[in-house]
């Protein structure tokens, strides 16, 4: 599947912001066997005083921009062409939780894909007895890791209500879980906390959904902005499996991956520090157009 992807994020500050420094993670990832970045450009207006393009620890393309002078309006535009080959796993080769723990302990690796990074609490995802208990309630004896991932994802999709505005970007997962409502970021953080709580390494994925659904299928939630979902480590054979709890499905070719991390803090599309006295407005426009019918 080929996609043409367009994203525009614009900010406007009431009182011009000075000394702005931002970290952008907007460019889709190249993932061997899953996703190819055929072409891509990120333009920033006004032109920043400094721009550094690099990859972060998890391999995500990262752009750091600096404005020394006050900036009143800031526009980030992304154009990219992506080939997406990933398929949802069709075979469950994953172990049960006890085996998974042993498999995990036998992996002597610290690389970006090593599951050890995704097992404990991370900056935005504290583990909580409440969410762990909820996750345990979904388990049945002998379930495989992949079954658990699907089961917990499905349960969350059933018990949570998608509601824009019920939470904000800084709402802790436990608060959203207690209220049983939120958006894709909340769904993903809660699912990560649940999975880690029962011993399955889990991380956060940010990216895009195709905006026009295939014929006869409903439009997915979260297609009008950047989206987020979950990846879980299901043992050495299945490896990392992606699951979208907001839409209750195993991720395949409709999702385009931008960044991987432990939680939102690692992959935030725009992370920034600036001093401004007044408020700010921001707007996000997304278009994800399939180029060939699949």
């Amino acid at each position, binding site marked *: 599947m080929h996609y043409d992807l367009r994203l525009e994020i614009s900010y406007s500050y009431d009182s011009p912001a000075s*000394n702005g*420094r931002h970290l952008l993670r907007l460019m889709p990832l190249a993932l061997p066997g899953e996703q190819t970045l055929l072409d891509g450009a990120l333009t920033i207006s006004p032109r920043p005083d*400094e721009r550094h393009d690099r990859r972060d620890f998890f391999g995500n393309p990262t752009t*750091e921009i*600096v404005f020394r002078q006050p900036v009143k309006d800031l526009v980030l535009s992304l154009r990219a062409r992506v080939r997406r080959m990933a398929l949802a796993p069709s075979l469950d080769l994953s172990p049960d939780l006890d085996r998974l723990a042993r498999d995990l302990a036998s992996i002597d*690796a*610290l690389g970006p894909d090593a599951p*050890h990074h995704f*097992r404990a609490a991370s*900056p935005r995802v504290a583990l909580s007895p409440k969410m762990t208990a909820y996750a345990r309630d979904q388990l049945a004896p002998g379930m495989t890791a992949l079954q658990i991932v699907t089961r917990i994802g499905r349960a969350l999709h059933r018990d949570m209500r998608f509601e824009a505005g019920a939470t904000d970007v800084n709402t802790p997962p436990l608060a959203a879980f207690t209220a049983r409502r939120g958006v894709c970021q909340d769904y993903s953080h809660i699912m990560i906390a649940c999975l880690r709580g029962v011993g399955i390494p889990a991380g956060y994925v940010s990216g895009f959904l195709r905006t026009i659904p295939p014929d006869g299928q409903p439009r997915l939630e979260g297609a009008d902005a950047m989206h987020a979902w979950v990846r879980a480590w299901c043992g050495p054979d299945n490896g990392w499996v992606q699951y979208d709890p907001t839409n209750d499905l195993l991720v395949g070719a409709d999702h385009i991956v931008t960044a991987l991390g432990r939680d939102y803090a690692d992959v935030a599309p725009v992370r920034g520090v600036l001093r401004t006295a007044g408020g700010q407005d921001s707007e996000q426009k997304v278009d994800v157009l399939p180029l060939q019918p699949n």
Partner: protein
Amino acid sequence: MTEKREEKTRGAGLDDQRRATGTQGIGAQGTGAQGIGAQPTGAKAPGAQATGAQATAAERQMAQRLADMLAGYEARPGIADELRGPDGEMRPVWQQFMCNLARQSPEAISDAFGRGDKYLRDAGVFFRHYSEDASTERDWPLSHVPVLIDADEWAGIEAGLAQRADLLERVMADLYGPGDLVKSGQLPAALVAQNPEWLHPLVGITPPGGHFLHFLAFEIGRSPDGTWFVLGDRTQAPSGAGFALENRVATSRVFSDFYPRARVERLAPFFRTFRDALSDLRLGHDSRIGILTPGQHNDTYFEHIYIARYLGIPLLEGEDLTVEDGQAMIRTVDGPRPISVLWRRLDGHMADPLELDEGSRLGTPGLIGALRSGQLTLVNALGSGVLESRAMLAFLPAIARSLLGEPLRLPNIATWWCGAEAERAYVSAHTDQMMIGPALSTTLPFEIDATTVLGGRFRGTARPSIDAWIKAEGAQLVGQEAVTLSTTPAWVDGGLQPRPMTVRVFAARTAQGWRIMPGGYARIGRTEDATALAMQRGGSVADVWIVGDSPVAAPPPATSAPQRSRSGALPSRAADNLFWLGRYVERAEATIRLVRAYQLRLAETGSPDDALPAWLRAQAETIGLDLSQPVPEALNGLLSAAITCASKVRDRFSVDGWRALQDLADSARRMRRSAGAGDDAAQALGVLLRKITGFSGLVHENMYRSSGWRFLTLGRSLERAEQMAAYLAWLTAPDAPEGCLGIAVEIGDSVMTHQRRYRGSSNPVTVLDLLALDDRNPRSILFQLDDIRDQTDRLPGALRNGQRSDLSRAVLRLHTDLAICTPAELDPDRLHALRGGLGNLSSLLHAAYLS
């Protein structure tokens, strides 16, 4: 696997030994031996190799005194003691010291101890005590008797710690580089990846000089068999070196007669060497060094100030720094200035909100960018906190053999990670001899919290069972041998008592390799319970003396020229705080003067409802000042604000100035509670005025005319001019009641001059002439504008290529406008406009220098 088994064997060995010492503890056997030990020790006065028969009377008397003093000193059986060796005899290193102490009367000893305490109080040394809802500054808990260690024994410790420092450097380089220790299974991946101190954005960044670690501390203790061992490594931003210095100064005052001939290794050379080493790390000789502090709310902030002053290195906060094109810069009043070495006292994850803890307000956005570009050395590198976790101690002994090819010269506390099956089983089987706690905790073994198991029991909330806990959360837990620490003499209730102790030792990387500070900082337990070592739990601290055989050489006089000028450009944040300190103190003074004038009127008439007092109250209300309070609360607010500013620049502020300011605020708080209306309040306010003048005197008479002083004095002048303009606008207004002009003259502290010059007749013109336009009256607006003009002309960039700065032009314009004014033209509108002009100067100053 072999290595791990060896480790277990060692654990078991200690375990056997413990059982052996336990046996010794049963019955009176041990105590008896100690009791006997005291006698022969006492009989051995220094140099007294002679038998009792040949000893002189003086020697016999000395011996008796020593025996008396130590009679009550009974070390607990089965543990090592610093004063007495394994044979119960006093260790030779203590003999001269103890004789010297025994020679003095209890009163003299108590006086001497008082000298040390007084020094610490005068120097402003305190520590911050945290309770549930508050943190308070408490007196520094000095245990006056130092810990004495023989230089030969110390040499062994030095060699062991230097080896350990090398090992830690190798581990650090691997954890942020190739990661071979994990790949080869020598370190479990989970302990690194899940360690919150392992900062993944730093992976792959090698510091400019190639070294990650430059300044370390180790907590060491002596085990029952007399050997030393390491309880923990402090690799992130070790504190305490400054405290060690302060302890030394205080202790050398306590023993002022004895110390100079005591053959104690001096500390100063260590610090000099470290400072030179920091200087050598600079990239380019015009770039700077700084100490990066989290600021005044940190519990060791005092030490940061102290060490910054001692080494002559500026103390910086995250806000002082900015990064341009990968170069870290200090934001100064003279523009950005490059800096290439930061001695970091800030925890790693707080250092850069852009790439690390996004909520940190203490860090500098982009700092990691400077590290990535190789233009900045942090001492120590970010992420070095990963080495501090308790679990690391379980693996270091084996890693030493594999990386260094030799065993650790100083063992560390036996530690077992419960994430591995065999270790978990061992810990479960020996819970009664273990401390079991979080594997990734960086606190020291004796800093026990509620989640710790000690001696087979939970310290806090009970859990169902220790076994179940270890089984469920094994990977998050370590067991550590419940160690017994040695005891050392502490002065308790007029006599010497043995108390448990550990010593913090510091190591600095120099061109010649690791250098260990000869001495350190001992923690002394409040009780015999070793868990009461921490200061937060009532423990105290003592100096550590390394005593050699030969006299200590006096430090050589400095031969080289001073390496860097102290007059480096002033950081903008410091300038801002000094400027506002000046403003707040002056605003407080103006407030006091107005309130006093009001209270004096009340004292005269006794009636608050008369026209003048009522009018004054109404006017004061418009600026948020409640004159019905004899000492208004607003005044306390101003003084608190002044103290807040001063506390952010304490490294630039004399101890006397700081104390004067605190005394002022304390007095104002007391008077707020006690002073009654009228004469009583007027008297109290008079006292406050004299105190505030005392503070201003310190600033004016004693403060070096640095640019810091310039901003402080500019704040004061601008505020004084503004206040006077405001007061005059009220008090000379046509509708102001009778008596207002007198109040203006009184507030302007110009009663006598006015009397003399105008012979008693006062009208708006005479008052305005004296208080606004007289350039010889230090209370007048024009006088202050003269001063503002002189000071702003000396600010950096006031005149560039013959062109005046915006600020300089605005000052000139305002000054000229006022100077050509006649008193009659100065109506309230004009005064208000003048006030606006002064406010504009403040804004321009801010934009140009302070932000």
